[in-house]
């Protein structure tokens, strides 16, 4: 296992190809849940957790059940990818919700309300599809998913910090709320463009 390869994936997913600011994935929760810092942190943790688990499940399903070259029955079922992945993610979220509720009530209190929202978060399905498109190994997929989740959380927390200050700012009336959040995201995306100069080699 090449460690430097993993490092490139980590830096790439968190900073250079940040899921929210460069790939446009997970915009709905990014705009919707970034009004308060505490809920941003809760949502971020839930997303990291679900993204990593979903990548694990979808990778195993793709390579052991769908891909003809490696699957147990050698039949080409790759056209079922989208249906299989969304079902896996939806049932996984339900399952995680039940397990956390039984085993860690305190954690459920913190993350509970965010879990149902995650099923329709395109970042989760996005990372599962990206792992397959980039033909990552299982380890690479897990690292990619976790760091994509960290990148999402980073962008969400930064945005929540800015929006808590915007509450007291004097903003033109038509721009209040969602429009100003998009303009802030644009400025943050310009800042994150600076990372695209990072190179390894």
């Amino acid at each position, binding site marked *: 296992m090449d460690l430097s390869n993993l490092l490139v994936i980590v830096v790439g997913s968190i900073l250079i190809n940040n899921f929210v*600011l*460069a*790939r*446009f*994935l*997970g*915009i*709905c929760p990014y*705009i919707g849940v970034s009004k308060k810092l505490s809920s941003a942190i809760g949502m971020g943790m839930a997303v990291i957790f679900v993204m990593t688990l979903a990548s694990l499940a979808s990778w195993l399903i793709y390579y052991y059940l769908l891909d003809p070259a490696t699957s147990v029955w050698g039949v080409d079922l790759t*056209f*079922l*990818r*989208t*249906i299989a*992945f*969304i*079902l896996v993610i*939806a049932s996984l979220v339900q399952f995680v919700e039940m397990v956390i509720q039984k085993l860690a009530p305190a954690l459920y209190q913190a993350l509970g309300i965010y879990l149902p929202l995650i099923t*329709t*978060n*395109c970042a989760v*399905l*996005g990372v599962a*599809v*990206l792992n397959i*498109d980039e033909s990552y190994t299982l380890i690479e997929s897990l690292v990619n998913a976790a760091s994509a989740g960290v990148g999402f959380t980073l962008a969400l927390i930064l945005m929540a910090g800015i929006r808590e200050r915007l509450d007291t700012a004097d903003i*033109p*009336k*038509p*721009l209040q709320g*969602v*429009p*100003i*959040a*998009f*303009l802030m*995201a*644009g*400025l943050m*995306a*310009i800042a*994150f*463009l600076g990372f695209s100069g990072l190179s390894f080699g």
Partner: protein
Amino acid sequence: MSVRSEFTKGLIKENPVLRLALGLCPSLAVSSSVENAIGMGISATFVLVMSNLLISLVRKGVPSKIRIPVYIVIIAAFVSIVEMVMAAYQPDLFRALGIFVPLIVVNCIILGRAEAFASKNTPLLSVVDGFGMGVGFTLALLVIATVREILGNGTWYGISVTPSGFEPVLLMMLAPGAFLTMGLVLGFVNWMDQRKAERDKMESVVKAGFARSRKEA
């Protein structure tokens, strides 16, 4: 509600992107050129119309507890059809749209219409509703893509439309341009709304004043 008003409400009054703030991820991601925007708009409209039709047909047979998984499977099936057709006949577009083709599944407009409209209405109305919402989504994509392609590349649908001295702003094609354009377009829509609301208020005040003065006279 007439068939006609079910169609037109999706265009302006309840435009999914500009009014309801749904389906934001694809509107940002594929709006760097008008061509991509049209491709995404047609694909999403097809999925919306077909899934609304099928969901409306089966709405009485689906127990309410498992309705969401059923809707998701129906939507995913139509998305897979779009994926395969596009990969076969429009490979360039398929590559340009990338992972946003499979991600039509999680476009909240589609599940939103299934839950809010198709699960309660007749097949005909559901198809019309899906078509209206799809066209509204396409229109919103076109507005954003028009701004971004003209400013960022000096072209519209690949045709050069700016004078020769025009220096394209590359930023508009990159990620920040999408966020800034979306923020300003949403702000403009709000501004129009607020201006109209104020004018209506003024009008009603003036009318009330007339009525009163007439009564006194």
